């Protein structure tokens, strides 16, 4: 037996349509997957066997005098098989029947008859199966009215009739019989009964078996048996009891009806078919015995009439069963639908209620009860009315007679729902009316949370606007494209006040970025700085940028500080703040001026100490010049040709003159109270120059200087002259500290060092004096603190302020030997103060 692994035939519809329960054919087809397949040879053989058995049975049950069998099952079996099997396998079954049919009929009956019979029998089954296939949508079940009707009409009447006509015609033509109409009628009604009684039963049972054995309770089995027995008994009483016709009331015929009704109600199609068979069997038995309401005429007529009766009864029972099933299914579907609705209604998070007649609220879900505070008891009391729910509708006065008016009021947007305790909440109400009846559904969405959020948002917005409005600084908010989306009052006023158009007078809606681009393109330097800062922040390269620029008019200088900050939100953007810093700037300038003056004073004081040194420095070249000049004069006076030597002398004079100029320049530079120029200064050469300057002074004081330079020290951003002044001051202080030290020990060392953490360069001046008491190490940098007999004590204070203006540190410590060490630590790439 071949078990096919392939799946269901194209005949089959997609299986997911069969997911509903109670789908007979569907279950059968899905049972195909389990392998018990109609493909095997077993099924056709089984069917053939049944066919044979049924044919024999039919033969036994033939009416003696009429060409009618009480139960001609074979055709019904074939019919049922065709309904159950996939269409592609039909040939197998029809073929399997051929030998059996022949075996059953031949050679008793003539060959032609057998053939014709075979064809017509098969034809009947085919017509019926095809009809059902065409007219009945899947799933096909005989407990549906439609299927039953088609079965009865097509399979039970039309198919038998058509095939009987053809068969009778053939028989008459062949000469088997010459009773055309009798043959037709007999065969028709016989087959009709068989089809009606057996096909549903077979199909139903097979499906039942395919689905698997369901537990049949003992009670139900007992009931079925009881019913069968009772029906049999009644039928016997009706059909078999020998009674004279005149003693029989026609009412007897209706005696089995209650039992039949019971059977159909309780057992559906199976019950209908089974009872039909019982009735059929018993009534046939009665006719055969010659008793009963059908045994009144000649045998043929009797046979025909009893079978007709059976057909009617069977059809009626089948239809009744179908109706009953459909009714039950409808009830079940209704129940399920009701359950679904219930759950939707009850579990909805939106407060929902249902009202019925006279606007009374009949049901409300949990959400509604929670919202309003009503209890289920209130609802059940039926006193709540829809029109009383909302203040609007209540205040509207008398209940509008027309529902339309009421509901119109509902759909306005500012409704308020009245809670049980009298409070009101803002809601959105929607309603929907039941079609065709009085009543409807009402949904109420609580807006309190939304209203609260709305109020908060408004509050925040108002605060935001108030803050912006009250700020003195001008503030504008840009989006990521550089367009002004919001500006505060100060900004607006500033933008609209200035008469000469400035590039940054941009108002909301205009692009600040473009304004800056235009002005920068025109060469406006401030605009270019703005543009760079804006671009950097908007592109995300920087979190903030600051810039300053001076105002327009020269008479009244003004300074504006602009800060561009990145807006911390996903869409980007920037906040521009403009502050008038004129006063602050002025104060800064004043302070700087004062510091410069002070520094100058200090410088002058130090220079006073160096006057002797300067005089000496100038004297050297002057002596040289004088000596050279007089020598030249002498040479020329000799009269000999000394041109070459005189030339050399003159060159030397020029050179000496330059030397003298340099000294004077340096002097001038030191005296210059000029603006601070921050340049890259190599501290090594700067310190060297200071040593040059002070050389003669150091010699005069008999001080020996040793210098060590760190060649890795990088340049610092500073004012060269100012730093040199500080170093000079320290040098002079060192010399003075050693005034009472023996000459041989008067040593000063200067060193430059690139500090270990690579942030600054340290210039250290170490002397061989007596050192500084630890408690004075900081004090000496304060103004008016001095150890000199005549000195103002400003030198170190000024030096420290100069150092601090460079972001540098000036500090002192005691060295390893007896003297003190002063450090000037200058940061690299100056962190300018």
């Amino acid at each position: 037996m071949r078990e096919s692994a392939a799946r269901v035939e194209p005949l089959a519809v997609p299986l997911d349509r069969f997911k509903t329960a109670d789908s007979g054919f569907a279950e059968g087809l899905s049972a195909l997957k389990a392998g018990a397949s109609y493909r095997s040879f077993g099924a056709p053989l089984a069917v053939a066997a049944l066919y044979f058995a049924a044919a024999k049975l039919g033969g036994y049950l033939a009416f003696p005098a009429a060409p009618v069998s009480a139960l001609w099952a074979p055709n019904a079996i074939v019919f049922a098989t065709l309904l159950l099997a996939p269409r592609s396998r039909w040939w197998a079954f029809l073929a399997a029947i051929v030998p059996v049919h022949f075996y059953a009929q031949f050679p008793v009956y003539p060959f032609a008859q057998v053939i014709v019979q075979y064809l017509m029998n098969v034809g009947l089954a085919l017509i019926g199966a095809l009809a059902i296939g065409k007219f009945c949508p899947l799933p096909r079940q005989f407990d549906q009215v439609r299927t039953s009707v088609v079965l009865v009409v097509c399979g039970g009447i039309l198919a038998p009739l058509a095939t009987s006509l053809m068969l009778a015609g053939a028989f008459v033509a062949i000469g088997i019989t010459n009773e055309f109409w009798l043959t037709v009628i007999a065969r028709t009604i016989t087959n009709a009964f068989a089809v009606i009684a057996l096909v549903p039963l077979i199909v139903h049972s097979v499906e039942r078996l395919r689905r698997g054995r369901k537990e049949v309770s003992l009670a139900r089995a007992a009931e079925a048996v009881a019913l069968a027995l009772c029906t049999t008994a009644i039928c016997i009483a009706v059909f078999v009891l020998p009674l004279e016709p005149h003693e029989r009331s026609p009412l007897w015929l209706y005696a089995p009806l209650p039992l039949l009704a019971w059977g159909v109600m309780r057992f559906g199609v199976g019950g209908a078919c089974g009872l039909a068979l019982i009735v059929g069997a018993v009534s046939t038995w009665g006719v055969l015995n010659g008793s009963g309401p059908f045994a009144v005429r000649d045998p043929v007529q009797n046979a025909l009439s009893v079978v007709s009766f059976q057909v009617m009864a069977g059809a009626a029972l089948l239809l009744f069963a179908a109706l009953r099933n459909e009714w039950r299914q409808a009830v079940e579907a209704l129940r399920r639908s009701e359950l679904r609705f219930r759950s939707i209604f009850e579990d909805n998070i939106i407060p929902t209620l249902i009202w019925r007649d006279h606007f009374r609220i009949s049901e409300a879900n949990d959400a509604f009860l929670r919202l309003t505070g009503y209890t289920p008891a209130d609802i059940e009391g039926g006193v709540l009315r829809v029109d009383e729910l909302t203040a609007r509708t209540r205040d509207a006065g008398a209940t509008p007679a027309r529902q339309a008016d009421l509901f119109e009021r509902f759909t306005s947007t500012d409704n308020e729902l009245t809670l049980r305790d009298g409070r009101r909440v803002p809601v959105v109400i929607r309603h929907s009316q039941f079609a065709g009846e009085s009543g409807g559904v009402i949904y109420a969405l609580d807006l309190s949370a939304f209203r609260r959020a709305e109020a908060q948002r408004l509050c925040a917005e108002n605060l935001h606007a108030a803050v912006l409005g009250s700020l003195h600084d001008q503030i504008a908010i840009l989006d990521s494209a550089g367009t002004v989306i919001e500006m505060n009052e100060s900004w607006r006023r500033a933008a609209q006040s200035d008469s000469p158009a400035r590039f940054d007078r941009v108002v909301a809606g205009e692009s600040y970025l473009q304004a800056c681009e235009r002005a920068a393109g025109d060469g406006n330097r401030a605009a270019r700085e703005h543009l760079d800062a804006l671009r950097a922040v908007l592109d995300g390269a920087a979190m903030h940028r600051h810039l300053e620029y001076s105002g327009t008019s020269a008479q009244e200088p003004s300074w504006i500080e602009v800060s561009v900050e990145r807006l911390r939100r996903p869409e980007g953007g920037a906040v521009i703040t403009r502050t008038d810093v004129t006063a602050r700037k002025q104060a800064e300038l004043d302070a700087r001026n004062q510091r410069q003056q002070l520094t100058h004073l200090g410088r002058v004081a130090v220079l006073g100490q160096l006057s002797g040194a300067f005089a000496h420095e100038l004297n050297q070249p002057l002596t040289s010049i004088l000596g050279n000049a007089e020598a030249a004069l002498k040479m020329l006076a000799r009269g000999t040709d000394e041109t070459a030597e005189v030339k050399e002398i003159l060159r030397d004079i020029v050179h000496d003159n330059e030397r003298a100029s340099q000294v004077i320049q340096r002097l001038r530079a030191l005296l210059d109270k000029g603006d601070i120029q921050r340049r890259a200064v190599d501290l090594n050469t700067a310190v060297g120059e200071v040593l040059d300057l002070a050389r003669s002074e150091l010699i005069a004081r008999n001080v020996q200087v040793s210098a060590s330079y760190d060649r890795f020290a990088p340049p610092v951003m500073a004012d060269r002259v100012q730093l040199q002044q500080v170093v000079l001051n320290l040098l002079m202080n060192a010399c003075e500290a050693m005034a009472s030290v023996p000459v041989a020990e008067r040593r000063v060392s200067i060193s430059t060092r690139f500090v270990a953490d690579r942030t600054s360069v340290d210039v250290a001046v170490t002397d061989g004096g007596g050192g500084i008491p630890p408690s004075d190490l900081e004090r000496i940098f304060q103004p008016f603190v001095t150890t000199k007999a005549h000195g103002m004590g400003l030198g170190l204070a000024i030096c420290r302020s100069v150092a601090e203006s460079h972001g540098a540190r000036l500090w002192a410590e005691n060295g390893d030997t007896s003297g003190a060490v002063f450090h000037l630590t200058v940061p690299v790439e100056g962190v300018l103060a």
Partner: protein
Amino acid sequence: MSATDEKPSVFLVDDDPGVRTALTRGLTAEGFGVRSWESADAFLREHEPDSPGCLVADVAMPGVDGLELQTRLSLSGCDRPIVFVTGRGSIPMSVRAIRAGAVNFLSKPVRLEELVAAVREALEQDRLIRFARARRALVQARLKLLTAREREVLDLVVAGRMNKQIAAELGAAEKTIKVHRGRVMLKMQARSVAELVTFTSQVAPRHAPAPTVE
């Protein structure tokens, strides 16, 4: 051969090269021979104390300064005359220098004729010193020729004693004394007692008898 036969030079010590060049030129043009050094140390190392010449030095120099140089020279017994030329002089400094024996103390910028005058003076001084030294040396040499006895006689003669007194003091005959005296005069190449006195006064006496107090 006397040391005085060498041509006198000017020895110039100044740390500033421009000044050295210029002064060298000026002095050379005046006909002096000039040698110059950058520092006092270099000068002390290289110069020959006996060579004739004077020293022109700056005061403010690194290391050994001018005044220190002056001190060292005199400590080493060199009495070469010094002319100081300085850019930063002060009165106390100049007084110190002069008192220590400097010929002059000039301030920069210095006029050539002023410098030349001072140099000439210094060279003259140097010549005189040399001359006196040479003289002394000569007398010393002659003195060495004397015997002990002659020496004694010399001492007494220079002290102003008469022969008779000398004879009495030394315990010798007068005649002998006369002979000694004659020899002394010859060896000492003195033409008169006065010259003898002059000679011996140039040399430190071994032990001077007490001068005759009449």
